[in-house]
């Protein structure tokens, strides 16, 4: 599709030389100076000019006479549309023009005014610039229809302007537009359009009898005209009806929310009341079939314009919801019906928020709508605005909304996890209503396994949203289960993939094998009854059926062939981020017990992770960070979990498979295993840890001829040494043993395999550290002070910090001694 030919043409346009360009400008000026219609050559040249001015991000300055010529031609006479488009496009890309001149040209020709407006809007630099366009559009709207056609794009242009600058309309102008919108929305003709361009020469007045518009299923239109009414052609008011509905939500959001209405009700003059009455009379006579909507509409003639618009917009939405029950003949109309439902419910929601008395009128139709579409997965996306409506108003209407949320949280993620738009919209719904869902809808938190399915399937697109949602899903009851689920998120991704393939390939077994034996064997396993339980657990929709399962390693093994699939790897990349969010938030409510449980999970799961490239290494880094943070928060967990920590620290294999985590755990033991942190810390406990670590140190530092060089980094050794020293300083019987070990270590560090493997500085560092510790331990009380644990849970206070306090302590003692000597007589 994008070929080298295209690239080279683009290159030419970008790199055109100035001289050639000026010649080109001259040629175009000449071509434009003709009085005749513009020919193919002109069009070609304009197309090339268009390419040149838009090809680079740096603007091209057109010669001012050419610019003025284009501007003048655009606003002056009526040209074929292609010419208008090209003028408009070139001018949009050029450096600024006179906005005033252009805006003045809006009045000249209705057909080109939209293209002129496009140029003006693209050049607007500040809010003042839009005033002329705005005024022109409003003038168009005010003019009676017999004066000339209204520019069809009046409403889109106006909507664009108010998006940019809502203050641009005065109260009166807002009222004017509101009145016009009521006209177009509610009182457009229901006859098929008058202009029949394909009328033949022989058609007499007989064939031009008015034919009513029809609904999308072919039946004659039951009530006033809406976007779901079809006809062979449409009159201007019907086009405006469509444009009006397309922007009404934006209008209401801008001018009919938060106290912009109701307060200052316009004092209607008797003439104004009469005029609005006349309009109503005329329109209601026309509609021969009166549907439910018209019959129940309250007498709104005396309402101020804003309130009247609200009423009519509400009726329009009500009618659309009714119309969406019809079975459309064309598929595109079915899709339109869905979009209309979404819009209608959203608008009703806005109106109800502004004026709660509408809730009692809205709920019956919304509830009926829900009843109609809830069973159909094809209408899943439509359910989301309905859920929002329930969330906002069900309490007021005393309607139960549980069933709606069950669809949303229990059904959709299980069956539609791979629909990107639904996933996006559901996640945004959760984001927008986080506070209410968290505290008011218990199903939300309960359904976290289901909600994770969207993320597992499409991690890159949804990760930033889930970083916001995760804290709201966490609670003391589910924290441990959530942690397990996060660690198994890539498994979930792999399982969902299998589930989808299994459903797709049920028909043909041959296709199974065509996709490579890797997936095929995993699929086979997926279908076997003996593994059913495993997969059902991972795919569970709700929390509460156990934090994790016993046979997790089996699941990992079964899925091992999928570990290299891109989807699984993308999912694996987001897990560390989510773990950070998890741990940063769990400390808000984690008590001692939960902290212990979480630490246990980290230690256990470190041996039980899905084997994806780089995944384990990343996770160990995260585990290390957070296990340190947990210990800092509740130092007594060292004693609470002493057995598990002893097992972990005493296992030499951990050095090789989980080096970073191991080092951190050893360091934590040294820091927090002391009476200062936990009075239960007995001499026996310290001794058992010491012996365990000593054994490990001994094992990895054997000096033998046949010993292989150490495959772990040097800081493992130094951390072990320092921790052992710390423990020894707290139970001084151990000091002699340690001194012996340290001297053996020095020998080890000087041995040939080590010198071959470590750098000279590292080997020296090991030896130096060993010497320092040995010397320190010769003065046990000093050692105890120097190697003492940090202050409990406080932020580092200078005089208490181990490292910085020693010189100060020495100085203080020295001073005291000096002072004392001064006191002594003589």
């Amino acid at each position, binding site marked *: *599709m*994008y*070929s080298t030919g*295209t*690239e080279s*043409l*683009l290159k030419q*346009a970008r790199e055109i030389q100035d001289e050639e360009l000026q010649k080109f400008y001259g040629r175009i000026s000449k071509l434009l100076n003709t009085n005749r219609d513009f020919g193919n050559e002109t069009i070609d040249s304009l*197309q090339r000019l*268009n*390419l040149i001015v*838009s090809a680079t*991000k740096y*603007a091209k300055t057109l010669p001012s006479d050419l610019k003025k010529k284009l501007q003048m031609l655009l606003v002056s006479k009526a040209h*074929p*549309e*292609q010419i208008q*488009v090209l003028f*408009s*496009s070139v001018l949009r890309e050029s*450096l600024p023009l006179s906005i005033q001149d252009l805006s003045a040209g809006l009045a000249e020709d209705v057909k080109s005014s*939209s*293209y002129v407006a*496009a140029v003006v*809007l*693209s050049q*607007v*630099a500040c809010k003042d610039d839009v005033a002329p366009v705005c005024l022109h559009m409003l003038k168009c709207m005010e003019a009676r229809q017999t004066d000339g056609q209204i520019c069809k*794009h009046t*409403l*889109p*242009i106006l909507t*664009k302007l108010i*998006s*940019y600058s809502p203050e641009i309309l005065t109260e009166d102008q807002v009222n004017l537009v509101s009145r016009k919108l009521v006209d177009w929305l509610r009182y457009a003709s229901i006859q098929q359009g008058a202009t029949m361009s394909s009328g033949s020469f022989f058609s007499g007045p007989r064939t031009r009898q008015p034919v009513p518009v029809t609904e999308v299923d072919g039946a004659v239109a039951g009530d006033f005209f809406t*976007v*779901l009414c*079809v006809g*062979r052609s*449409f009159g201007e008011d019907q086009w405006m009806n*469509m444009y009006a*509905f*397309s922007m009404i*939500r*934006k209008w209401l959001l801008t001018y009919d929310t938060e106290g912009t209405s109701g307060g200052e009700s316009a004092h209607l003059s008797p003439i104004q009341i009469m005029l609005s009455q006349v309009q109503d009379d005329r329109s209601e006579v026309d509609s021969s079939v009166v549907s439910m909507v018209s019959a129940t509409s309250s007498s709104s003639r005396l309402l101020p314009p804003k309130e009247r618009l609200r009423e009519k917009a509400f009726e329009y939405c009500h009618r659309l919801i009714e119309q969406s029950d019809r079975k459309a003949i064309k598929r*595109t*109309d079915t899709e*339109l019906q*869905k*979009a209309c439902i*979404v*819009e209608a419910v959203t608008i009703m929601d806005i109106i109800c928020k502004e004026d709660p008395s509408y809730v009692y009128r809205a709920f019956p139709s919304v509830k009926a709508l829900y009843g109609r579409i809830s069973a159909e997965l094809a209408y899943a*996306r*439509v359910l989301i605005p309905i859920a929002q409506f329930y969330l906002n108003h069900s309490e007021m209407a005393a309607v139960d909304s549980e069933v709606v949320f069950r669809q949303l949280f229990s059904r959709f993620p299980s069956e539609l996890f791979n629909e*990107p*738009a639904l996933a996006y919209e559901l996640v945004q719904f959760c984001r927008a209503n986080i506070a209410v869902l968290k505290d008011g809808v218990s199903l939300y938190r309960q359904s976290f396994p289901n909600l994770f399915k969207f993320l597992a399937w*499409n991690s890159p697109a949804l990760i930033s949203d889930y970083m916001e949602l995760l804290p709201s899903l966490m609670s003391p009851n589910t924290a441990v289960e959530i942690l397990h689920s996060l660690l198994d998120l890539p498994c979930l991704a792999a399982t969902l993939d299998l589930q989808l393939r299994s459903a797709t390939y049920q028909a043909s077994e041959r296709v199974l094998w065509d996709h490579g034996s890797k997936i095929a064997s995993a699929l086979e396993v997926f279908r076997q009854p003996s593994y059913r339980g495993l997969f059902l657990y991972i795919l569970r929709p709700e929390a509460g059926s156990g934090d994790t399962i016993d046979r997790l390693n089996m699941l990992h093994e079964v899925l091992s062939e999928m570990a290299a*699939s*891109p*989807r699984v790897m993308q999912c694996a990349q987001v897990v560390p981020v989510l773990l950070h969010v998890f741990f940063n938030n769990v400390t808000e409510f984690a008590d001692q017990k939960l902290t212990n449980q979480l630490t246990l999970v980290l230690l256990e799961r470190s041996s039980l992770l899905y084997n994806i490239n780089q995944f384990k290494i990343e996770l160990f880094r995260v585990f290390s960070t957070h296990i340190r943070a947990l210990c800092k928060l509740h130092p007594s967990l060292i004693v609470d979990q002493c057995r598990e920590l002893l097992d972990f620290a005493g296992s030499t294999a951990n050095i090789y498979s989980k080096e970073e985590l191991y080092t951190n755990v050893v360091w934590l033991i040294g820091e927090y295993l002391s009476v200062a942190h936990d009075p239960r810390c007995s001499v026996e406990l310290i001794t058992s840890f010491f012996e365990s670590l000593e054994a490990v140190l001994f094992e990895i530092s054997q000096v033998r001829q046949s010993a292989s060089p150490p495959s772990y980094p040097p800081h493992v050794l130094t951390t072990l040494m320092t921790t052992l020293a710390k423990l020894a300083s707290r139970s001084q019987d151990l000091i002699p043993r340690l001194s012996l070990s340290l001297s053996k270590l020095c020998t080890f560090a000087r041995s040939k395999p080590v010198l071959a493997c470590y750098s000279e500085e590292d080997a020296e560092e090991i030896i130096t550290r060993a010497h320092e510790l040995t010397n320190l331990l010769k003065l046990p009380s000093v050692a105890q002070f120097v190697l003492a644990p940090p202050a409990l849970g406080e932020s580092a206070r200078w005089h208490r910090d181990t490292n910085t306090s020693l010189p100060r302590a020495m100085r203080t003692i020295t001073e005291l001694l000096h002072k004392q000597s001064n006191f002594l007589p003589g």
Partner: protein
Amino acid sequence: MVCCFLIHTVCSVNALSAGSSRVLYSRVFGPEDNPETDPERRRLLQKERLLHLARRVRTAVGLCHDAAGSACVECVLGEEAVALGEAEFGVLRLSAGEPFPVERTVLWLGVQNLAFSLVCDVHENLLLAEGTLRNLARHCMEELRLLGPGSEILLKSDRIDALLHRYLPHGQLLFLNHRFTHLLDKELSAYGSK
């Protein structure tokens, strides 16, 4: 409302750095908040924002394509319906500042080595936006012969302008039933012929 519509590459382009995207067509609707006062710098900022957006969409398309793992079926002229049927679709949220000053949503449709991106306001009717995007993509594919080797997308971009003028006037998404669509299509087919 829609703030802009882009057609850009999602394959690697020799002249550009890795991960960049060549923007083949861009249309920004109406006034945008722009801190620059000098008109040249305003334009430059706007273009840079679009390039940033194109890069982000390119990344998203690439990741989505990798995850799906299906081989790309090369289509030729006449097989537009097949190409569109195989197209990947996605939605992304753009936080404030990345690159637009306010939060926005971008819908993208990846067809072969091009992507069509539609940037809307947040809280827009995404069902309608998706339908509009697919419709625009179909028209572009057919009228600009994108599956062929030519460069109509560069030289005949006024056709896209005319298309947007009808289906997305000034960025307004429209609720068009099949008759409105038919009438607009008829107007469009008369475009360019005298």
